[in-house]
Structure formats: structure tokens, C-alpha cells
């Protein structure tokens, strides 16, 4: 094998690994539990994160939604079909799942997201 072909093969291998790392780090999914336990709010809400298909969250319950990658995510909350709140939140680093309480959302203030254990929460 010539030196040139060794360099080409090495570069291809490095590219292969780099693409793998990119896919893993940017595509990794995390679960966000959206709580709708606000006593002041009547009725179910519909939540869409990062433009995905909206998911209904019944009053007094919660729903787990998968988001791609940590970092910033866009959330849209709708009541009775009309947009009620649009904002952004940051997924807590070093955690695989987090909870977001709709009752804690105040227009103009940062959305609070707390890390949770997905196994216990899923039950």
C-alpha cells in the first residue's frame, strides 16, 4: 500500500467516525415531561415542541415528548386550538429526561425545566 492510499484511507476512516459522532451528538433524543397540573387552568392543552406534531395533555396529567439534542428548544402551547404561549427553554445538560410545568410558565420570564428520572416518571 502506498503512502498516498494510506492517507486517503485514514482520512475516510476519520470522516466516518466524525459523521458518527455528529449523528450521535446532534440526534440524541431526550424526554421532556409536560405537566398540566395547574389548578387555575381549566381544560386540556396542546403542546408542540420544535414544530413537531402537537400533542394533547389532559388537565391534571402529563405527557412525555421526545426532543432532539440538548440546548435550546421552541415550545408552543395551545388552548382550544388558539396559540396561548410561544417561547424557548433549555434542556438541562447531563440529564436524559426533564419536566416542564405549564403552571410555572409566565410570559416574559424564563421557562423552568427540572431534571427527572425517566424510569420512575414513566410509571
Amino acid at each position: 500500500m502506498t503512502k498516498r492510499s494510506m492517507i486517503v484511507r485514514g482520512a475516510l476512516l476519520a470522516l466516518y467516525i466524525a459523521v458518527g459522532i455528529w449523528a450521535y451528538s446532534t440526534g440524541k433524543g431526550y424526554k421532556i415531561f409536560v405537566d398540566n397540573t395547574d389548578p387555575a387552568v381549566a381544560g386540556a392543552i396542546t403542546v408542540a415542541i420544535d414544530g413537531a406534531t402537537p400533542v394533547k395533555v389532559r388537565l391534571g396529567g402529563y405527557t412525555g415528548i421526545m426532543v432532539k439534542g440538548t440546548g435550546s428548544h421552541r415550545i408552543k402551547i395551545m388552548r382550544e386550538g388558539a396559540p396561548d404561549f410561544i417561547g424557548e427553554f433549555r434542556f438541562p445538560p447531563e440529564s436524559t429526561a426533564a419536566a416542564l410545568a405549564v403552571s410555572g410558565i409566565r410570559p416574559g420570564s424564563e421557562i423552568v425545566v427540572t431534571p427527572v428520572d425517566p424510569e420512575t416518571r414513566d410509571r
Partner: protein
Amino acid sequence: MTLKADKLGKFLSDNIVTVIFLALTLVAIPFSRLSGTYILSNLIDRFARSSFLVFALILPIMAGMGINFAMVLGATAGQIGLIFAIDNNIMGVQGLVYASLLGMPISILLGWFCGQILNRARGREMVTGFILGFFMDGVYQFFGLYVMGWLIPIKTGQVAQIDGGGVRNTLGLESVRGGLDKIISLKIGPFAFPIVTFAVIALLCVFIIWFRKTKLGQDMRAIGQEQGVSHSAGINVDRTRILAIVISTLLACLGQIIYLQNMGNMFTYTSQRQAGYFAAAAILVGGATVTRATIKNVFIGVFLVHSLYITMPLAGKELFDSAMIGQYMSDFINFGIISLALVLHAWRNRRNADLARAGLRGGAALAAAGGDK
């Protein structure tokens, strides 16, 4: 008049499989009572789903190895990649890239292994490939049911069986569903065109056209014509045949990932087998033989087979008052087509041999009149 009849006879003889399938589809459409819009929108979706997979069969046919039933090995590799992507929660197109990166080395290894065996079973490649597919099923089941969860830990309950050992029989692929199709989806009226998937299929077509013109492609065609002469001409026949199978297995791996991201769920232990049967039926219905296949055959075959899949269950319901019978008929026709194509191939080979013998005996006129080679 006789010349016209001869031409028609030759056309029917060469395209009998396609003609039968087209006739069945045309009969099934009115009975199904489905609208043209429904059939067409379904066809567009299914075309994006399966075309890549069927392309995997072209190169081995070109190299004279017949229908590569061992493409099941590549499809299995793609499924292993997807299992890991789902277990690691890799979503969207990144999940598909991750699955491809894991599946490709496995498919290359399996393709090399398969090529080695097929070289030792020269002349009986199709039946050997078929049995290799069954052998791989056993290995894959051992891997999925015992190695996964025992040697390789499964991280999520979505993948693991209830007792924690082995991979579930059915996997939901929601996190990667439409990962490729939905990157750019062009909506024209009631029809949605997955542009990126079509672009990938177009790229593969360009690759195949280019590949046929390369030295390796020419070598494969020469080997497909006559192995002994190719060997005498200095072509490394064994290596070229192995490469044909390796590329086919690799394409089957990627094709299966594209197929499953469109479906959105995976029957862990059977999806790969269905992929092999479907691809074989589609390319044969498209007019390919076990010795000749083109891009046109792939497109016609995918179009016709899916037309029948869409219409037959409902036509069966209308005709026999049971959608199940329509489904059985689709499967029966699928396998029947594979059998018919293989029987026709054997019949043509025998007829050509008879004609050649007659020609040697001085019956040159007979050979010229009836020969189709």
C-alpha cells in the same frame, strides 16, 4: 401477417411476466373501487419506500449470479443498525445516518462471507443465496434474542422484551419515522413528494449508470456473459463476483433502512425476509430476467407490484367478500411470479441449447427463425 404474429409472439415470450402482472393489475383496479388519486398518492409513497431496495439486485444479475436472494443479509445488517439507533434514542435523519454507519461494516462483512460461499457454489448461486438467507435468519435470531440483553445491554424498555432479555418482536420506529422523507416534502394537490428520498434514488441510478461504464462494471458484464473467457482475458473472476455481492449487500442494508423509516415500524425477525422476496418479485415483474436487469425494470416492477398490493385486498373483498383472500392472492401472485420467471429462464436456456444443437446439425434456418438470444 406472419412476421407481425412472430414479433408479437416474441414480445410476449420475452415479457410474459410483466404482461401477466399488468393484466392482473388492470383487472383488480375497477374491482377495488379505489380512486385514481388514492392509488397514485399511495404509489408515490411506496415508490420512495422500496425502489432503493430493488436496485440492490442489479449488480449480481449483471455479474451472472442471478437474483441475489442473499440480499437478506444486507437487510439484516440495516435492521441491526436501526435497533441500536432506537436503543440509543437517536432521532430523525441522524438516527438513519447512525443506523447506516453501524449497518454498513456489518453488511460488507456479510457480503464478503456470502461472496466467498457463492464462489464455491458456482452455477447454483440463487438457491445457495436463498439458503444463506435462512442461515442468517438463525444467526440474527440468536443475536436478537440472546446476545442482545445478555452480552450487549439494552438501554430502553422500548427495545427490550418484557423479561429484559432480547429485542422485541415488533419495534416502533417513531423517532426515525420519515427521517429522510420529511426533510423536504413537496405537496402538489393531494400528492406529497419526498424530494430527498427521490434525490437519493436518482443518485443511485446515476451511480449504476456510471458504474456500468467503469473497468469493474465492464468486468462484471463480461463475467456475466462468459466466466471462462473472462478468466482467460485476465479478469479476476472470483474477486469481481465477491465485489458484486458486497455492493449488493451494502445497497440492501441502506435500502432496508430507507424502507423501514418510511414504514415507521419493524417486525424485528421477519422484515428482512419480506424485503428479499419483495425485491426479487419486483425486479422480475419489471421485465428483468436472471441474466439481464436494467434501471427501467426496477421502476416498472416497483410500480406494478405496488399497484397490485394497493388494489388486490380491496378487489378480493369485492369479489370474495373477504379482504384476507385479496391479501393471500397478493402473496400467492408474488411467489408465483418468482417461480414463473425461474421456470421461464430454465425453459429459454433449454430451448436455446436445443436450437444451438439444431444449428450445428445443419438446421441453421430453424435456429435463425426461433432463436431469441
